[in-house]
């Protein structure tokens, strides 16, 4: 099968959907001729024209409000925010409008929109352009939250997000844009709320999101050399969360390490850990659940400090060994 980059997979998902469905259009800052901050929409304006690939003013609140409005009229907008950090400006539209309207209209109106936005650190973009704020939106009832980790996943999940009648916050990790994997040419959908076991194992379950999926897999390779068999689970969507897959895995291994890039304090890992502790997996736990997350500090600009602010492969290895009393 041919390989695509994560970035190309996002573009292909959108293009295929726009060819199929005239209601789908994209809007955002500089997404037209410039192709967007990371070049995701490059070439799309040539195919779909400025009506369906709409450049907007620099106003995240305006973009989001326009998207909510058009979704209510029956369109299926995809809006792009250049950096997920800027979601703060759009949050009133997202939290108080998009998330609430379908409920408040008693189901008579709906907001089928997708908010795509790159998140995460590692590019030297400093404190205001490197955050992982997915826990904020995951907290809001009415929003779905997706964090794909591979090119294959991103294409299928984006299709599912576009098809969904609820507002979906779709996080793309900046460092993943250039990663490649096999991606089918045809359009396909990965249901939201279905976790993926990225690697099977027996001794410990590592639940990792986004870029951390890849670090967890790398750690698992290393751990295997020490005879430790790690299972790596990528939830893929935080809301809805595939609890069953996680609980089943932890029941099997008896140990869980939850890893994300977002700051550990108040991070979504706390939600996953609590869910495990409350589940029937509890009786199978043979070690306390470990959480790994970013340090409680702004992401530094210095590249070395930037790295040390978020979990790296050796951190995951160490945490796994700790839970196995093999430190």
């Amino acid at each position, binding site marked *: 099968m041919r390989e695509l980059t994560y970035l190309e997979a996002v573009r292909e998902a959108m293009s295929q959907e726009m060819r199929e469905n005239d209601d789908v259009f994209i809007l955002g800052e500089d997404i037209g001729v410039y192709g967007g901050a990371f070049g995701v929409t490059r070439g799309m304006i040539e195919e779909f024209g400025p009506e369906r690939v709409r450049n907007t003013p620099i106003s995240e609140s305006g973009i989001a409000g326009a998207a909510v409005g058009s979704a209510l009229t029956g369109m299926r907008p995809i809006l792009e925010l250049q950096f997920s950090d800027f979601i703060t400006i759009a949050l009133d539209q997202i939290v108080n409008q998009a998330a609430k309207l379908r409920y408040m209209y008693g189901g008579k109106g709906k907001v089928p929109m997708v908010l795509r936005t790159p998140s995460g650190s590692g590019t030297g973009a400093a404190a205001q352009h490197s955050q992982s704020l997915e826990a904020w939106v995951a907290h809001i009832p009415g929003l779905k939250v997706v964090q794909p980790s591979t090119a294959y996943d991103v294409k299928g999940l984006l299709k599912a997000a576009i098809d969904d009648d609820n507002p979906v916050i779709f996080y793309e990790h900046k460092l993943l844009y250039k990663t490649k994997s096999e991606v089918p040419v045809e359009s396909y959908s990965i249901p939201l709320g279905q976790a993926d076991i990225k690697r099977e194992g027996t001794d410990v379950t590592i639940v990792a999101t986004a870029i951390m999926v890849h670090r967890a897999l790398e750690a698992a390779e290393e751990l295997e050399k020490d005879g430790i068999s790690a299972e790596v689970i990528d939830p893929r969507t935080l809301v809805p969360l595939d609890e069953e897959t996680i609980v089943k895995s932890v029941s099997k291994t008896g140990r869980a390490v939850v890893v994300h890039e977002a700051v550990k304090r108040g991070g979504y890992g706390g939600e996953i850990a609590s869910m495990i502790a409350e589940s029937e997996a509890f009786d199978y*736990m043979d070690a306390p659940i470990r959480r790994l997350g970013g340090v409680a500090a702004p992401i530094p600009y210095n590249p070395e400090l930037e790295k040390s602010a978020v979990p790296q492969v050796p951190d995951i290895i160490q945490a796994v060994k700790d839970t196995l009393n093999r430190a």
Partner: protein
Amino acid sequence: MAKEVFMPKLSSTMEVGTLLQWFKEEGESVEIGEPLFEIMTDKINIEVESYEEGTLLKKYYQLDDEIPVNTVIAYIGEESEAVPKDPPVGNDQEGSMEERESSSTTEATETESNVKESQSNKVRATPSARRVARENEISLHSIQGSGPKGRIQEQDVAEMVSQTETKLSTPLAEKIAKDKGINLHNVQGTGSRNKITKADVIGHDTASSDEPERIQLKGLRKAVAAKMLESARSIPHVTLTTDVDMTKAMEMRQALLPIIEEQTGYRLSYTEIIMKTTAHVLGSHPYVNASLIENEIILNKSVHLGLAVAVENGLIVPSIQHAEAKGLAELTVMSKTLGKKARNNQLTPEEMSGSTFTISNLGMYAIDGFTPIINPPETAILGVGRIVRKPVAIDNAMEIRPMMVLSLSFDHRAIDGAPAAAFLTELKECLESPYGLLV
């Protein structure tokens, strides 16, 4: 107001005591001076008497629990008086912060369903370990945890389960194993479906008998080991020996034996004669009856004679206070009763401390001289050999005399050769003409 009963601190080295026995049940009345419980320290087993009177309201610990000193282990008070359900935490007045912290963490892991068990020792175990223990009806108390801070892991329980799993064995194999104290779990069976047969048990027995026996240094053995190492390492020992003609001492013993036996019921032995003589001579050699503590040489006024007693698994030194003031009859009674108490593990801490000079008697063996190790903080120790008839030159003639070797080890930091030699010489002379003691 109910009064606490503490785990006593019986020596400066005692950190924990192991509870061996309760003499009273909860609800029973207790008098002052009545034995309340028995504990084992690193040195001795001892019965602890009650300092209070009233009703034993609450016992917090069970047999074989190791309890830090100064921990509240029980309450005595008025009947129906309320006392805490759990032992008060942080009552170890001398305990370190660390100890306090660990006991309060233990507190936090208590489960209500298990209050009775957990009162004594709460178990740290993972949920999975608990589940497997529950499923297999195994008590977590019987399991040694391999996880951090002794946490019981699932694996630990699984191992215990497999250990308690019944292995196939023939009735004869079982009987032989039981008789020889062999755990069938460790025996590999060669019969049908790996059934353990007689030959397997006997094979295992002979195979394991080639293995050296390994004994953990603990309790008294460990205390003796530490003390001996400390003494040998820190004290510059010098040992002097001399031959003593015991003719007169023997005559004296012959004469006094029936008298003392009639008076006390105990038979006078040479040990007491040597003790008496030593105590007497030490009076004029205060440097030898000294203690060296840090930078001070303490010249003791009284002679408290330590008597090394071999007991099962070690060595104990009961001490006879003011030996210089005691007659042979009293010394005989004391040395016999203390020796017996030492062997029966019944010595009180007072009876085991405070000696200023020790005598170690190996005269019952075919031993002449040896190099005894000083019992610090004392500065000298006397080794007594056997009495053996030997030819000696007396006034240009050869005579057969009952001879005995005395070996004096002394701490050269406190005592020099000349005063030590003078002491030993006078001791020898005194034993050779023991009637001088009467003077």
